[in-house]
């Protein structure tokens, strides 16, 4: 499936919630959408385009905004599809995909705690990798790692 085919199927169903379909090497394409249209898009992608398997959900912090991306696989087309949406850094929220693809559950938990994007209507948004009550989102660019020298000084006081 080519990006044009994707656009032909998606744009009548999504209207202006669809921002564009770009080519992406090694994939069917990269679909950029507005976050309000997330659930509609997921349903169309799963049911009409047969991308039944959600492989991963991840986030990228672009400082002024954050990007959430989804990778889905279709067993009949034997292709991957990349979906991505931008969320503002002040209000990083997007609808959860776990009602459409149950496999999104843990990936979204991880994205929430590491990149700080919250997922609405997620069944179980708890800490997964970091301890309960961990107050930071380590994969944000503003979260800096210690230099080893600093660590040396600090660890003497532990």
């Amino acid at each position, binding site marked *: 499936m080519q990006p044009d085919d994707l656009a032909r199927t998606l744009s009548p169903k999504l209207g202006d919630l669809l921002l564009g379909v770009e080519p992406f090497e090694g994939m069917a394409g990269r679909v950029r959408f507005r976050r309000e249209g997330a659930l509609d898009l997921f349903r169309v992608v799963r049911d009409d385009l047969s991308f039944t398997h959600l492989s*991963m959900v*991840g986030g*990228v912090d672009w400082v002024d905004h954050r990007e959430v991306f989804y990778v889905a696989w279709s*067993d009949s087309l034997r292709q*991957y599809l990349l979906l991505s949406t931008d969320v503002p850094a002040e209000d990083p929220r997007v609808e959860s995909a776990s009602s459409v693809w149950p496999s999104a559950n843990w990936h979204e938990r991880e994205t929430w705690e590491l990149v700080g994007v919250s997922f609405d209507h997620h069944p179980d948004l708890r800490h997964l*990798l970091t301890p309960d009550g961990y107050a930071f989102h380590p994969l944000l660019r503003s979260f800096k*790692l210690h230099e080893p020298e600093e660590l040396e000084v600090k660890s003497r006081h532990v």
Partner: protein
Amino acid sequence: MSEMWINMGPQHPMTHGLWNLRVKIDGERILDVDPEMGYLHRGIEKISEDRHYNEVVTLMDRSCYVAGLNWEHLYILASEQALHISPPERAEYIRMMCAEFQRIGSHIMWYAAFVQDIGLMTPFLYGMRDRDLVLDLFQSFTGARMTYEYMRVGGVRNDLPPPFLAQARKVLDWLVPRFKEYDELCIGSDIFHKRCDNLGVLSASECVRHGVTGPMLRSAGLKRDLRKDRPYSMYRDVDFDVALADGADVTGRYLVRMEEMRQSIRILRQVLDWLEHHPGPVMADQLPRWLGAPYAPVGKEGYVLKRNYAKGVGFSSIEEPHGEAQAYVVNEGSERPYRVKFRSPVFANISAARQYLVGYRVADIPPIMGSVDPCIGEVDR
């Protein structure tokens, strides 16, 4: 009867690593499970942002420590796409050879650990003996047994030493009858069937719904193998079959892994033949200065040099011994990746634990979780 939650882990013989399986039980019956991860969360994705492209390879070995070369392969494929670099053909074949040998090593390690879960001790010793032979091969050209740092953006670090091919063929010849031995110890034994048949059943449609991949998916009869469906490296040129089983249970997963090792041997024989007849470079030329050295970047200058390098996003997906692993690398034109994201197959396989554990007995947990082949390093990253 009263219901209660018990913790199996983080230190428990069942876990094969650091994680905690919270189980809700009524007597011996499992009512609900809740895996608790993160005890080995080492922040690999964050540290990668502070490292050069080639330095991240170090972390890849440690992220899945039984399949280090597969994870190097995964990361290198994604960063090459992000950096618009293509490696020479011989390097691709060497990588493929590494991946297949590592698959054998990983599956033998799984075998050795899994049989202990069902109470057999002898196969553990057999398995470790044969795995050491495979690791000796790796040692002969990478210098390490487990943490190799062998692949580089644009190729591999060094070519194979001359006696390698003959030695590798010898190991393959040794392994083929060993697999028969393994089967006699397990599949030939009634006790194995009594413990493992119809256990941990997860149908193909449930696998797809919950993102389960790899031997677990193929044991349910769904034919999906990225080496065939979306060939990377040079898998298009080699001839092999996808290992399948039915039953979707623990025995099925055992059969799939055993068959995969045989298929890996088939691939390896073709790859070794190719390598014998096609000498050539193993690193791409025309690399940017900070990537060009086969070892770490040379001198201070290599670090400070900022090229206006084309931006890009790389995505790769490989069939790792545990399932489908994916990498997503964002290149923003600096010598360090802007963001690296990995998808671990075991992460998804364990997240579906509720689907294949509920309804069985507590004593069934070790064989079922053993058949998932948990490698916690890659789950927690």
